[in-house]
C-alpha cells in the first residue's frame, strides 16, 4: 500500500468489497466472507457460488489504531474490529460514527459504504465497507 498500483488490483475485488458478496459451498453449506476460490472444507468436492450477505453483525473484538500505516496517517485514532456477520462469517474492518460506549464486545453494527484510503498522491481512491453502531 502507498504505492501507485495498477487499477485491476482494486477493481477485481469491488463486487465483494462494496456489496458484501461472499461465497457459499453447495456441498457443505458453509458461507465464506471474504470470498473463497476453493472451499477449504470440501476442497475437490466443493461447489462455490456467490451469496449476498446481510449487512448486520456484532463486534467480536476491537482496538483503536493510534500508530497508522502509510495512507492512514490522517485518520488516527480510528477503531478497527473483527465483526461476525449475522450470516456467520467474520471479517475485519473499521468502526465509524462511534461513541466510546459503542465499542464493546457484542455490540451490534451494520455495514456502510465509505472511503478507505487513497493509493499515493495521485492514486486511486479506495472504497469499501466500514461498520457503524446500530
Amino acid at each position, binding site marked *: 500500500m502507498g504505492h501507485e498500483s495498477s487499477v485491476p488490483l482494486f477493481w477485481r475485488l469491488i463486487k465483494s468489497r462494496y456489496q458484501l458478496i461472499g461465497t457459499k459451498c453447495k456441498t457443505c453449506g458453509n458461507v465464506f466472507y471474504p470470498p473463497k476460490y476453493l472451499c477449504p472444507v470440501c476442497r475437490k468436492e466443493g461447489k462455490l457460488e456467490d451469496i449476498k450477505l446481510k449487512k448486520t453483525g456484532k463486534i467480536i473484538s476491537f*482496538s483503536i489504531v493510534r500508530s497508522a500505516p502509510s*495512507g492512514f496517517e490522517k485518520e488516527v485514532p480510528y477503531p478497527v474490529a473483527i465483526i461476525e456477520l449475522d450470516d456467520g462469517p467474520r471479517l475485519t474492518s473499521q468502526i465509524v460514527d462511534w461513541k466510546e460506549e459503542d465499542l464493546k464486545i457484542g455490540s451490534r453494527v451494520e455495514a456502510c459504504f465509505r472511503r478507505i484510503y487513497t493509493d499515493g498522491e495521485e492514486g486511486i481512491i479506495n472504497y469499501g465497507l466500514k461498520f457503524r453502531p446500530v
Partner: protein
Amino acid sequence: MKVAILGVGTTKFGENWDKNLRQLAIEAGTKAIMDAGIRGRDLNAIYVGNMSAGRFVGQEHVAAMVSGELGLSIPASRIEGACASGGLALRQGLFSILSGQHDIVLVGGAEKMTDLMTDGVTSSLMGAGDQEWEAYYGVTFPSLYAMIARRHMFEFGTTREQMAKVAVKNHHNGSLNPIAQFRKEITIKQVLDSPMVADPLTLFDCSPITDGAATLILCKEELAKKYTDNPVYIIGSGQASDTLALHDRRSLTTLDATVKASKEAYRQAGITVKDIDLAEVHDCFTIGEIIATEDLGFCKKGEGGKLLDEGATEIGGRIPVNTSGGLKAVGHPVGATGVKQAVEIVLQLRGQADKRQLKDAKIGLTHNVGGSGATAVVHIFSR
C-alpha cells in the same frame, strides 16, 4: 532425530545506524563460524531467514548476497514465513542434514528495519497479515494483537497488569543480555502509562523496530564430536499453519498452529512439556507470551496471566520464559528472531549465558510465530 549445533553468533540488536543488511549478516555469520571452530569451506549450504528485505531496504535475493559476501559458491536459499522466517530457516537447515544431503550448514536470520520510517515499517510488517482483507482497512499488527488481547481479557479475565508483567520481566532479562536493544529495567506503571499504540496495548507492550542478525552452524550428529566437546542437539521440530487472516480462525485466544507444532516437536523429542527447563517464546506483543505459555502447555488455557503472577516464568522460576529478554527487550528484527531464540537456548544449555544463566538447564524450547499466528514453528534442544 538429532542434529548438532556447533556454533552460534549474533550481532548487537538495536538501531544499528552504521551497519547495512550485509554487514549484519556477515558479522553474525563469521562469529558463528569462528565459534564452531570450522572454516568457511567446510560449509555445504546456507539457509537465510529474512522476511522483507525487499520492502525494508529494496534488496531481494538475500541468500545469494550472503553467500557472495562469504566468498562461497555453495547453495544458498532464503526462507520466508514472516516473523517466523528464522525458525523456518532453521527447520530447512535441519532437514537438509537429516536428508543426508549435507553435513554442515549455516542457518542465518537477518533483518534491517530502521532504514524505513515508522509508517513504512508498519505497512511492511502488515505484509505478514492479509493484504486484501486486513491491511486494506487500515489494520496494523499492534491492533491485531490488541484484538487478541481484548478477547483474552474478555474470555479469561486477563488483566493489563498481567500483560505489563511480561514486559517488566523481559526488560529485566534484557538488562542482563549484552546484545539486547533495551537494557533498562521498567515498572508495571511505566508500561501502563506509556503511549497507547492500539488499545489496550501501549508502547511497552510492543516489541521494537530492530536491526540484527543471528547465525547457527548445524552439523550431522556423527561428525559433531570432531569439532566440539560441547554440542547442543536439536531433538524435535514441529511446524504448522493456520489461516492468514486473524478473523478466519477458530479462536482468537488460541494459536492452533502453536498447539499443533508443539505437539509434533514434543513427540519427536520423546518428551512431555514437564521436561522443558526453559523456553524462548514469541512475545512480539506481551499478550503473545501469555498465549504462547498456554498453547505450549506450560499452564492451562486462560491461566497465562496467573503464571506471571506466580513468577513461574522468571529466571529461577518453574519454567523460565525468554531469559534472553525476548523479542520485547532484545528487539525483533523479524527474520532474525527465530534464529536468535535458538542462540539463547544454546548459550543456556552450554552454561554460557553469563548473568542470565539458569542452573542445570538440560532441555530448551523455541517458539517462533509468523503474522498473527498463520505460521508457528517449535524446536526442542538438549545437551
